[in-house]
Every structure is written in C-alpha cells, then in structure tokens.
C-alpha cells in the first residue's frame, strides 16, 4: 500500500509543486493519477520513488518510510519515468541483465518473466542491439520490461502509454490489470482519459498541487453528473477551453 500523508513540496517561495496532499492507494487496485500539465503529478511520483525529497509530510510504502529504509522500499518498486533513463551505448540485454542483478532476480525468473515480456512486447529481435538504435516506443518498452521483470509489489508508471503502438498499449493495460489483481499496486499517470476510464479502479485528480478528487469514476459521476471522464476532468480542473475563441485560426 502507498500512503501519502500531508505531503508538500516547495521548490522556491513562489513555486509550491505539491501542497499538503493525502492519498491512499490500496493493494489490488489500479489507480490513475490525473491532472493538467504542471499540476504536480511527476513531482509526487518523484517523491514516492526517492528522486526528490518532500519539504513536509510522509510517504509510507508497505508501512516503510522511503527516507528511513530507502533500499528496502526501492526493492519493491518498479518505476518507469516519463522520460525513460536508459544508457544509449549499451545493448538492451545488458541493461536488463544489470537491472536483474541489482534487484537480485534469479536466473529462472529472468528466463521466465524476461522471456515472456520480451516476446509480449516484441523486443526480442532488437534486444542485442544498442539502445541508441531503438525508437521512442522501443525504449519505452525496454523501460517497462525492466520495471516488470523483478515482479514489483508497487508498479509506478509516469505516462506509460506514450510512444507505444496500439498492440503494446493493449498488452500493457492487460498487464497492469493482471498485476493489480495479484494483490499488487499499480499507480500511473496519464493524460488519456479513455485509458483511465477503461482500466482504473480508482482515480486521483491533482490540480495546482492539491488533490481535488480521489475515488472511483462512478463516485465522481455521482457528484458531477453522468458525463464522460474527459468532461468531468475539464469541469473539475476548471478548464476554460469551452469559452475560448478559436476564430483566429480561420
């Protein structure tokens, strides 16, 4: 379980990226983290995985504080950042082997899970090539495989669908659902409302650093009316796109 308690991140006096948020993400759930650009999604995720320090508040992963037991916490997290961190000069398989060694994945597990994932994402043909030869989508697939290969209890994905072809996107959605159904946590950000609507058990909406909604999509509909998630999202985040005048494009 991920428990975020009164979490705040202030970059400077004028920039409060995350403003005293509380969030609880339970086992067995796929939770979508939605919000406009610059709302604080990536900053929150970066604090969960230990990439940046909270100004105030606490993050508990399986009851452990990342600041107190960083290695134990990181060991149960699989993370794909919005811009995958991959060293371009090495081959895909070298990178996967490195991840497996660091996460201490047994050779049988590597072959079983790694083999399945490489085949599912159709990366087997290119796995011995340098990462620099990969397309954006292939890099995204490699980052996803490396996050999944050690069977993490907590899977955190920042914009995982970006760059994936329809088939891989569909596979990933199924993997996310299945991973959560095994009692794990899947927490991800997306700007594609259809995906959130399709696979999320719950959603959390963040805007200007504050959580403005957390619950199921049906619960949101109960409050705001029976509309599409996109309409609901625009309403909750007080989007002004309906009032915009696009005539200058004519």
């Amino acid at each position, binding site marked *: 379980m991920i428990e975020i308690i009164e979490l705040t991140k202030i970059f400077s006096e004028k920039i409060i990226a995350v403003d005293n948020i509380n969030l609880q993400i339970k086992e067995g759930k796929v939770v979508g983290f939605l919000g406009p650009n610059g709302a604080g999604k990536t900053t929150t995720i970066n604090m969960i995985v230990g990439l940046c320090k909270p100004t105030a508040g606490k993050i508990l992963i399986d009851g452990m504080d990342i600041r107190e037991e960083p290695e134990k916490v990181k060991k149960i997290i699989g993370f794909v950042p919005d811009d995958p961190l991959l060293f371009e000069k090495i081959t895909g398989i070298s990178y996967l082997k490195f991840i497996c060694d*660091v996460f201490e994945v047994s050779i049988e597990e590597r072959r079983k899970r790694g083999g399945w994932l490489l085949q599912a994402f159709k990366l087997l043909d290119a796995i011995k090539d340098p990462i620099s030869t990969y397309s954006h989508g292939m890099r995204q697939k490699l980052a996803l495989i490396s996050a999944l290969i050690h069977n993490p209890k907590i899977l955190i994905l920042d914009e995982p669908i970006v760059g994936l072809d329809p088939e891989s996107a569909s596979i990933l959605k199924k993997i996310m659902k299945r991973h959560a159904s095994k009692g794990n946590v899947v927490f991800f950000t997306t700007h594609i409302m259809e995906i959130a609507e399709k696979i999320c058990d719950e959603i959390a909406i963040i805007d200007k650093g504050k959580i403005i909604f957390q619950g199921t999509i049906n619960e949101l509909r109960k409050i705001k009316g029976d509309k599409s998630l996109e309409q609901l999202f625009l309403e909750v985040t007080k989007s002004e796109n309906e009032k915009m005048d696009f005539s200058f494009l004519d």
Partner: protein
Amino acid sequence: MKKWISLSLIELDQHYKISKNRYLLKHTKDETIPFFALLAVLATLIIIYFPFYLDFIKVNLEFYTLKGTESLFIAEFVMITGFIGFFLGAFVLIGEFFLKKDMKLLITLPLKPYEVILGKLSVVLCDQMIISLIFLLPALIYFGIYNHLSVGYYFSMALVILFSQIFPVLLVLVFILPISHLFKKFKNKELILYIITSIFMVLALIYIFSSNDIFFVVTKNPQNMPDIYINPRSIFSRLTWIYPPAFLAAKSLINTGIYRFSWTLGFIGFHIILLILSLYIGEKLYYSTYVNFLETSTSAKKEEEKNIDLLFNKVLSPNKALLKREWLYFLKTPSFSVNGFTNVLIFPGLCVLLAIIDAGIGINLQREIKGPLLGMKMYWVVIISSLAGSLSGLSYSCFSREGKFIKELKILPITSSQILRTKFIHIMQLSSIGIVSGALIGYLLFKLNFPEFVNVLIFSVIISIFFNLLQMLIDAFKPFFDWDNPQKAMKQNANGLFSILVIFGILILLGFLFYFLSNYTDQYYVLILFSCVFAVFDLLLWQILKTRTTNLLNED
C-alpha cells in the same frame, strides 16, 4: 548575418548557462558560492603563478632584445598560445561539433551548415580565448610597455589577441571534418575520431620537437646557439611555414605606420581566408557527416541469438553488476575513456620523453638537474607515480560523469556505500595503470633499488587513494550533472581545477616536509612514516566521503 548572430548568442547562452545562472542567482543565493569559489581559485592561481610567468616573459624579452630579434619574442608567444590552444581545443571541438545534442534541433531549422559552424565556432573560440588572455596578453602588454610603444601597437595587439585562437581551432576543424566524413559509416566513429585526433596531436608534437632549432635551441642545445645570431632573419622567415600567424602577428606588431597597418590587414586576411576555406569544407561535409553520427545500424539476428536461456545466462551480485555498469558507461563513452586512459599515461609518458631528450640531445640532466634531484629521488618517483595515479580525471568527475543517470542510481535498491565503493574500485583499477607505470619509469630513471621501489610503490598507492578520495569529495560537494556533451563532464569541469590546485599544494607541502625530515633520517624511513600518516587520512576521508555521498543521493 542576423541568423548567425542570433544562433551564436543562443549557443553562448546555452554553453555558459547565462540565463539559467541569472535565474538561479535571483532565486537561490546558494548558487553564488561555487561561482565565487571558482573566482577565488583562479585568483589564487594567478597570484601564485603570475610572478613566475612575468619573470619568464622578462628574461625572454631581454634575451631577444639583446640579440636584436624582438620579433621572435612576439612570434614565440603567439606560437606557444597557438600550440596550447591546439592541444586543449581539439577534444573540445569534437565535443561541440559532434557530440552535443543541440545538433538534433539545429539540423531541423532553416539554417545553412556554415551558419551552424560559425555559431559553434564562436563557442569554442570564446572558451579558447582564456588561453590567449593568460599566456599572450601579459607578454604583449609587457612588450609594449618595455619598448614604450604607441596606441597603434595596442590596437594591433588587441586584434592579434582576438584572432590568436582562430588558426589552431580551424586547423583542428579542417582536419576533423574530412576525417569524420571518412569514418562516418563506421560503428565506433566517435572513438575513431578521438583516436585519430590523438594521433594527429602526437604528430603535431613530433613536428614541434623536430622544429626545435627555432626556439628550443636557446635553452636546450647551447652548441647551436650561434645560428640564431648569425641569421635571425632566415629563422624568422621559416616561421611562415612553421606557424604562419606567428610570422604575420610579429610583422604587424613590430612595424610602424602604414607597414603595421598593412601587416595587420594581412594577418586578418589570412584568418578570413582560412575561415572561408573551413566553412566551404564544412558546408560540403558537416551536415551529411552529422546525420550519420545520429544514425546507428542494427544487425540482422541469427535465430540462436533469440534463445532466452542464452540471453539470461549469468547472474552477478549487485556489487559486481554496479562495477560492470561503471566500466561499461566509462568505456562506451569515448570522451571519458580516451581522456581517462590518456591522463593516466601522460605523466609516465612525459618522463620517458624527458629521458629520451636527455639521452638524445645531451642536455646533461645528470649533472645539472639530476644531481640535486637524486637527493630526493624517492620523493620524485612518488610524485610521478601518484600524479599518474590520481590525475586521471575520473575521481573529480565521478558523480559529474553520471549526468542524468544519477537518477538511475537514486531509484535502484542499492546503498550509497555500495555506489561509493564501486566508484572507488573503478577509479583505483584505472589509477593502478598510472601508479605502476609511473613507479616503474621512476624506478628506471632514478635507479632505485628493490626495497626502495617497494616502499615508493606502497606510498604511491596510499597517497593516490588519498588524492582520489579528496577529488571524489570535491565532486560530491558540487557535482556538475547538467552537461550537454560528455567532454564537459571531464575536461570542462571546474572541480578539476580545484583538484589540481589542491593536489599540487599538498605535493609542494609534502616535498618541503620530505626535504626537511630527510636531513634527520634516511628518506626510506620518511616514506614509511608518510605511508602510516596518509593511511589514517585515507580512512578519515573515506568516512567523510561516505556521509557526503549519502547526502548527495538524498538531494533533489
């Protein structure tokens, strides 16, 4: 013209982070600390070395004036500045032209290759200008004051200084453009480019040494000295072929009136012609070569290569996997590996060169230099060995070299101690090449006996550990992650400047202590004492570095 100015301004802004630093200075005052620390280091360096340099200028000018060959004085300094610019600028130029990521953007913009080349050249030339300001400016100002010259001289002098780095930089560019074009289809083109440029530099070095009867004769071979007095004009004319800008610069500064004006125009014209030639070559080759640098080929796979069991066939412990990562990231980045290997071998190489010169042209080091040196022979071998082992450039950039991959280290389930231990082992593995080769060369040069050699080797290892840990600590305090080409993480990292200053300071202090203690006991025992003291320092430094690394990895 407008595009070029706009592009150059953007490139300079990006290179020196002007906008970013202004923003940071406005918002976070802490950013001023490294800036002022750097200024303090530079000021210290200038205060320490400038009197020596001024003395060197003075002695040279008096010598040339006495022989009525003042033009050779100007030529000498223009040449020295040019050679330094050539050797230091070559790798910077490769980094700027072929490894910097901004080309991916520039290539898509409606800019002509020559405009991009000019933009990039302005960055390299601005970087190189520091060399002219340090070495050439004081010499030419001193020359003007010494000879009570007019304002016209200072005007021409300003132009000579402004243009002084153009020739060496363009020389490298004219060499690199066709070479990069030639090897653009090769798999390891970056590495090939570095290796061929290194060979080019070695050849240039041989060329400089082979033309030593121009200047080096004055200090190295007294027998040839009369040549310079008999026919200074012919020697001066030969400069046209050896280093043309030095000839033109000397002519424009030594003459007066219309002659000065004409030679200054000639000096400028020469550089403009060379620039046009470079731009012409660049226009033809640069974009097509760079596009190939962006491309990487994939190979057709055999069926057996898709065998999962063979793909995942070996398990490493996390520590070994980390060490493998460290070596892979180092070896696969030519800017790191070429610099690293060159640095560990440069001091032993220089010593071999000195020995060859000693044996070849008979400058009689044995009597004049070796005599006093032999009194502290063990210390000198320690210096060669420890400098070779600790100035690899790896330790002061151990965290900086990570760049954006520092994030990878932060999210992996490994402790800061594991990371530190891995980095230290990697650095010491490479350093050991320098330590052992330095000690062996020193052993042969200074004819140490075996127990002395072992003693020197042990102390060199201990003090190299100390120096490497110290440099790692410097880097851990202010790592430079935000580089856009890997060359900047090593060669253009301010932590290197701090490190060199600190290491040389310690070595001077140590030399003084060694000399002082050698009066009371055998140098053999002095080194044993030093080894014990520095072993304790190593342990203390390790603890401090561990704490600092943990803090660094916890920072945003």
